[in-house]
């Protein structure tokens, strides 16, 4: 069964999904700044890839955008919310609107693919009933080539399949912002292409995506590729 995904309400939200202004960051106890005055904007409906050598500050920037770290200097605005001074409860609410894709799948081994997705729908303000969650999960897993694994637990899935379930988990609530860290690292080319195609489809419908990757094969799929070196944006392609 296919589900039609409604475009996001672009009028209600600001034109930029993420606005990063002069952001610097250093880890506690370290004199070296991992981010040095970074400025970057992610427009609504834009797909941006962050790339660069290890230690360039890509992941730190991603965690700041995801409201997973406290701001130090500068300002980041995510989906209209300024992160400086955002209290824990509002951070939590903001994170529910973000689709997080981590390097590791981190799936609960006791839950099937559907149960994982159904649980995630608890973060959707509408809290859809089981039947609706099932329809959404079938459609999404179908797009990722996992429809027949709907009721399988992680123990029955390959590493790549688990990663795709984790990607489905990030997208099940149709988040307006997707933050992905090396989502294709454990995938073969076919699976990788299907994941990128899925993210692109979401972007076309109005979502924004910020992805950290070293996988040059997928650079072409992005609207912009931002190269970071030593805590700064080196160049944008």
């Amino acid at each position, binding site marked *: 069964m296919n589900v039609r995904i409604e475009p996001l309400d672009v009028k209600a939200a600001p034109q930029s999904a993420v606005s990063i202004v002069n952001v610097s960051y250093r880890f506690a106890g370290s004199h070296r700044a991992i981010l040095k005055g970074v400025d970057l904007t992610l427009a609504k409906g834009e797909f941006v890839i962050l790339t660069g050598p290890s230690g360039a500050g890509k*992941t730190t920037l*991603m*965690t700041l955008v*995801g409201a*997973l*770290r406290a701001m130090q200097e500068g300002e980041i605005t995510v989906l209209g919310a300024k992160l400086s001074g955002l209290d824990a409860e509002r951070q*939590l*609410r*903001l*994170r*529910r609107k*973000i689709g*997080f894709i*981590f*390097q*590791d799948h*981190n*799936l*609960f*081994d*006791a*839950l099937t693919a559907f*149960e994982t997705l*159904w*649980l*995630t*729908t*608890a*973060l959707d*303000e*509408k*809290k*859809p*009933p*089981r039947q609706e*969650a099932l329809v959404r999960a079938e459609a999404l897993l179908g797009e990722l080539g996992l429809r027949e694994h709907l009721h399988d637990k992680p123990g029955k899935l390959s590493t790549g399949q688990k990663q795709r379930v984790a990607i489905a*988990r990030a997208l099940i609530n149709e988040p307006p912002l997707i933050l992905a*860290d090396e989502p294709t690292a454990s995938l073969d080319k076919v699976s990788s292409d299907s994941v990128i195609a899925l993210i692109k489809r979401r972007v076309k419908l109005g979502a924004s995506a910020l992805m950290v990757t070293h996988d040059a094969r997928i650079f072409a799929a992005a609207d912009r590729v931002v190269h970071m070196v030593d805590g700064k944006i080196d160049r944008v392609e």
Partner: protein
Amino acid sequence: MKLLNSAEWGLGLRFLGHNPLRLAAALSGVAVAVVIMFVELGLLLGVLNSQAMVASRLDADLVVMNRARVDLHKWTNVDGIRLNQIAAEPDVAQVIPIYQGTMGFRNPPDLSIRRIVIFAFPANEVPFDIGNPEKISNVLRIPGSVLFDRLSRPIYGEIRRGQDVELDGTLFRMAGFVSLGPDVVNDGAVVMSEGDWLSRHPNDQPIMGAVRLRPGTDVHEARARILAALPDDVIVMTPDEVRSREFAFTLKAAPIGILFGIGMLAGLVIGAITCYQILFNEIVDRFAEYATLRAMGFSSRFFRRVILEQAAFLSLGGFLAGAALTWIAYLYLAYATSLAVGFDVFSSVFVLMLTVGMTVMAGLFALRPVAEADPASLY
């Protein structure tokens, strides 16, 4: 808007159930704690109930005793004249004198002599709820006929109805049985008539008087009038008050409350540590998964619910398993000690509450790593 997605329910159970060995270990740990708590509490209540057994068996509205008799095992007599004075009160229907003493009971099979408690009262009025009063009276009306407490410890040997037994060198006919029960010190009892008792102890005074009031009389008002009419060398209490006083005295006079309390605490600590360890391992093993949910926006309330669900399951499952084991332990204890050890609503609810509290506290402590988790570490 719905507050909860039904997918959120049952997660704790599924996570626990996914590792049957760990689940079995957790349930066993809680069950052991439950058994320890039940046994300690059961023994404590068994001792208390046994010490107050006489008060529990009294079939009377009020009890009159010498004021100096501060506990039921201090056998200070009450002046018989006081019982006659009380009997003259208009509210009082009847005052039954109860005598208590000990005699040497010669065991027929091996002829050894063992001390046994004697309860004596008028043959026509049975002041205790220890069997069919009519049958008891019929036996006691026959001089030289006595009744044996079937709940006595087995040290007296097998006693048969119609058997002749020797008490302080005199033969009595064991004409039947009553159900009273031993306490910590006394192993058994024989019931005889006031006439038989006084014929051997002619100057003895009752140890208490069981007062029965006329129907419709308010017990407390009647007691006030009785006390007003008597000198203050006696006390008048309801059987429940005597029982409560005996509980308090036993707990105060002997350190059993502390001893059994420490035993229960040990059970509680064992259970809490086991539970904490199991739940902590459960969380640590799934730390990345929990941290992922936290990063995604699941609130602390969600994690508390998961862990509390697990704690509730462990406490209920462990309680049921522990109660089943305790049932066997109680059978043995009751057999071995002849004390009133057994389940009752109070101890069951009390142990269940302690078990739930123990697992919930352990769960909440075990949850601290998730609460302190840095979701940024996932990237």
